[in-house]
């Protein structure tokens, strides 16, 4: 019951004239879903960038972007100000001169930003936005998600190597090492809920949580490990070593400008959404909500489930943003040390607790 079938029911209920039957064919449905998902992503990414600047402003007792907004809205409150700021940024980046350094390795240099963005787009395929609202419900959902997140590692390495400069190479190597060593605790932290749900498909995990209880209760440690590893995967502070401004000027993005830089920037925020969405699905019960089945009408049920999912995801996004603006940056070796020597054992511990919990609950 993916989004495509939802739309087909919509068309049937709206009484589609038989002449337009081709609309319901697979290819057209795929395009419609694609447009829907890409639209959702770009809107949410633009909103996230604006939200991040406002949240950081609030934490630092300043106003954040106010200029590019509707005057009378600006006057009302800081949170309504500057709503067109991200759109203005996007246009600025589009217009900016997109220079390519001379000695750059053309193919690799151009491919990297594209790969970064496609990697994060591909992970939206399995995210369950609502009751039956996921593009496809792969039964290897979680493994697919991890596979796609490891493609981003390659893109950053290509960016580092392609820009052919000492600084970006160092930045590229560092971020690759970081993302690999944080992928493993992330995988094990994910295994807790998967173990309890008994299936890898994201929709089944959510249904399992709807039936019993949210999976955060037994594996709270797994949740914390996942959040920390998630921030490391998306290169956000306190793990933003690759772009450690003070040391390596800008890490692997040093040589990029204009639209190519925007791609890296957008990818970071769309990864932020993906990490929070996965955290909600696996630990906070995705779109499941105690009172959900009480609503009779299926259309409203789907809508409510979508809203519940969004609320939970944005709670985690705000948590990640809060972490970003309160912690200094970790050093390379401390980061590795922390990843392998503290996160990994806790992830195993969480797996153990989840296994015991399953054994006990089965016995009861």
């Amino acid at each position, binding site marked *: 019951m993916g989004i495509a079938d939802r739309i087909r029911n919509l068309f049937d209920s709206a009484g589609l004239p038989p002449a337009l039957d081709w609309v319901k064919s697979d290819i057209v449905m795929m395009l419609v879903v694609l447009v829907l998902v890409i639209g959702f992503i770009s809107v949410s990414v633009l909103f996230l960038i604006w939200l991040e600047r406002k949240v950081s402003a609030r934490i630092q007792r300043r106003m954040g972007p106010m200029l590019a907004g509707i005057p009378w809205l600006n006057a009302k409150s800081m949170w309504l100000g500057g709503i067109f700021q991200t759109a203005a940024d996007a246009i600025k980046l589009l217009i900016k001169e997109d220079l390519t350094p001379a000695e750059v390795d053309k*193919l690799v240099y151009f491919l990297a930003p594209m790969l970064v963005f496609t990697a994060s787009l591909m992970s939206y395929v399995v995210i369950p936005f609502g009751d039956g609202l996921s593009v496809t419900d792969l039964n290897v959902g979680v*493994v697919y998600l991890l*596979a796609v997140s*490891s*493609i981003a590692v390659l893109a950053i390495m290509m960016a580092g190597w392609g820009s052919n400069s000492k600084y970006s190479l160092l930045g590229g190597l560092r971020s*690759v090492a970081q993302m690999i060593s944080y*992928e493993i605790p992330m995988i094990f932290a994910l295994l807790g809920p998967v173990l309890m749900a008994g299936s890898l498909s994201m929709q089944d995990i959510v249904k399992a949580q709807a039936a019993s209880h949210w999976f955060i209760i037994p594996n709270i440690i797994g949740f914390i490990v996942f959040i920390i590893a998630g921030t490391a995967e998306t290169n956000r502070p306190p793990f933003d070593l690759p772009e450690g401004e003070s040391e390596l000027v800008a890490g692997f993005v040093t040589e990029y400008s204009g639209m190519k830089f925007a791609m890296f920037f957008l990818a970071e925020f769309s990864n932020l959404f993906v990490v929070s969405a996965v955290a909600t699905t696996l630990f906070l019960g995705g779109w499941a909500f105690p009172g959900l089945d009480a609503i009779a009408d299926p259309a409203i049920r789907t809508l409510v489930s979508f809203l519940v999912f969004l609320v939970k995801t944005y709670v985690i996004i705000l948590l990640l943003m809060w972490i970003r603006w309160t912690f200094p940056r970790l050093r390379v070796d401390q980061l590795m040390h922390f990843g392998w020597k503290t996160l990994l054992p806790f992830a195993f511990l969480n797996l153990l607790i989840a296994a015991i919990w399953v054994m006990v609950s089965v016995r009861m």
Partner: protein
Amino acid sequence: MNPILFWSIAVFVVIAALMVVRLPNIFHAGLSLIATFGGVAAVYAMLDAHFLAAVQVLIYVGAISVILMFAVMLTQHLAQREVRGSMSRHVSGALVAGLFGLFAVIIVNTQQWPSGGLPFKYLQAGDIGKLFLDKNAFLVPFEMVAILLLVALVGAVMVARKEGDR
């Protein structure tokens, strides 16, 4: 599995493989290797081995190609091109590979392979897990591979270790 899909993926994979072998710049060869891995993952998906396709991307594209790229970066000065070997090696190499390929293709195509339609048991991710841990199925090799990986891990660290920090 309509044929157009198969032929497009197959051609993509073969071309990417040829690029791995022929490209002078090692880094570009590495990238085409990653493209091959992606193509092979698509082939698995076509053969209804979805779990394997995901694992292929996760391990090959995510880990093994990263190690190879690290090796390339550590042993190459920026954007250094490999010097072309003498032609004679390539002719003999191509000859050997070509002949072997020819024989294998002839053997493969003359056989009477069943062409689809047989009752195919789709392996869910769960079934693979059960098979791995089922005593009389794959439990022993599973443990052996675990030990092998550990040995490889320790061995790699020992071999690549700096003299100083013994």
